[in-house]
């Protein structure tokens, strides 16, 4: 059991209950689609697992360890083992594509030579060969989204959280990206992906967890349900 959510509730400061008593187990190596209407709580759940935020009650265990009270050292370790594609990308717009991807590796203090090898590798995987030096601000929406993906997978994380990673991509590019995710998943990375794309969910026969108003309303293998 890699990730376990136990009675997780998240009430935001404005009184809105984004997650309501969530229980969820995800095994190592699983591929999980998170679906649900806009505002259902998908991003909130990812934020909690990634420890960007804390649950109001309940707890989240990663590799059997509760992540609510971690030292700085442990938080750093957790984050180094997770990759996140944020729904709003959160790229450094003025920096180059290379720098945006390399930041993951720099932060983990990987030697420069390794970075110079690894960055072009992931950029190739997301179909952005030759755009290394371009500042992100010059990229199209879909290109930015792929830079965000490249950043998340650059250090080969154990867990990959992807929040709506194909929202700005055309069907063909989406499918290529999905193939990449599946490939990464086959190399033992657990993938948790929030998506609205009916076609994608239907095409890959994976576990689908559906949220509605902060509750899990369905958790099954197969197609898209709302």
């Amino acid at each position: 059991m890699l990730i376990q959510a136990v009675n997780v509730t998240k009430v935001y400061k404005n009184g809105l209950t984004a997650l309501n008593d969530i229980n969820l187990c995800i095994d190592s190596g699983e591929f999980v689609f998170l679906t649900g209407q806009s505002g259902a709580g998908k991003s909130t759940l990812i934020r909690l697992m990634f420890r960007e935020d804390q649950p109001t009650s309940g707890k989240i265990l990663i590799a059997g360890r509760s992540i609510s009270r971690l030292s700085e050292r442990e938080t750093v370790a957790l984050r180094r083992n997770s990759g996140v594609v944020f729904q709003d990308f959160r790229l450094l717009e003025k920096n180059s594509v290379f720098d945006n991807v390399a930041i993951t590796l720099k932060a983990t203090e990987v030697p420069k030579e390794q970075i110079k090898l690894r960055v072009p590798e992931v950029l190739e995987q997301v179909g952005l060969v030759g755009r290394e030096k371009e500042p992100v601000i010059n990229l199209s929406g879909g290109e930015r989204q792929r830079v965000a993906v490249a950043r998340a997978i650059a250090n080969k994380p154990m867990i990959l959280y992807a929040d709506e990673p194909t929202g700005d991509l055309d069907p063909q590019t989406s499918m290529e990206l999905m193939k990449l995710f599946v490939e990464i998943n086959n190399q033992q990375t657990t993938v948790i992906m929030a998506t609205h794309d009916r076609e994608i969910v239907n095409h890959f026969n994976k576990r689908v967890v559906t949220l509605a108003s902060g509750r899990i309303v369905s958790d099954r293998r197969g197609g898209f349900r709302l």
Partner: protein
Amino acid sequence: MNRHGFSYVVPQAFSSLRINGWMTFAAIATIAISLFLCLLFWLMVINIDANAEQLESNVEIIGYIADEIPQEQYNAIQSKIAALSGVSSLTYISREEGLQRIAPRFGTVEQLLDSMGGVNPLPNSFSVKAQSPEAVSGIAGQMAALEGISEVRYGESEVEKLFAFTSALRFAGIVIMALLAVAAVFLVAMTTRISVYARKQEIMVMKWVGATNWFIRCPFLLEGIVLGLVGSLLAVGAAFFVYYKASAYVACSLSFIVMLPASALWLTVSLIAVGVGVLMGAIGSIVSLARFLNV
């Protein structure tokens, strides 16, 4: 942090300073200006203290010896004066010497004597210098009470004027110094905060991808230190350049003012100024960063 970490951290600090271009320049310039003026006033206060002490204790207290006192008793009087507390030096001035001292105001000694029908009107006197300016009036009072001293004179009004003037100048100097120091602190705080805010997004991203707090802090710390260092070095350099020039000018044109030699001051003053500058930069950046690092 390992050595690879350092190789990312150091260039980043400088690139941030470079990218902000004229803002960095303006920040350094204002910090340097305020520190520079702050230093000038500090040096001024130091020198006022030195001058005031010197000038004020230089005031001469003249005790005229009553004409009827025979020369033999002079020694006794002299030792009584010497025994007064606060006396630093004591000289006997005969009526002839006294005449010589005032003569230049009227011509030569001969002319003056001539014009007075060959009679020197001055009595014999003792000239006393005090150890401290505060002691002057006490000594004068006690001397006047001594038997054999007919009259005591000292530049009462001048001493008071000088005292008032230098202490006013000193007070103004310290207030201005404090204001400029406050301005410098604000400026460093503002600059580091702006720098942190401008890179808020970058800080967050670094946290999310698993950078340690020190990895994130380092470039900002370095930036703050460089800012403080450059600002204070410029200020110290400019201040001592000006001080050096001013000393030369004062030495030839305002020789009544005594300026402490730069060589005796610069080490302490520079160390303090640069130290404070660097510390301010470092603290400023760490404090500005703090709220972003508790994620």
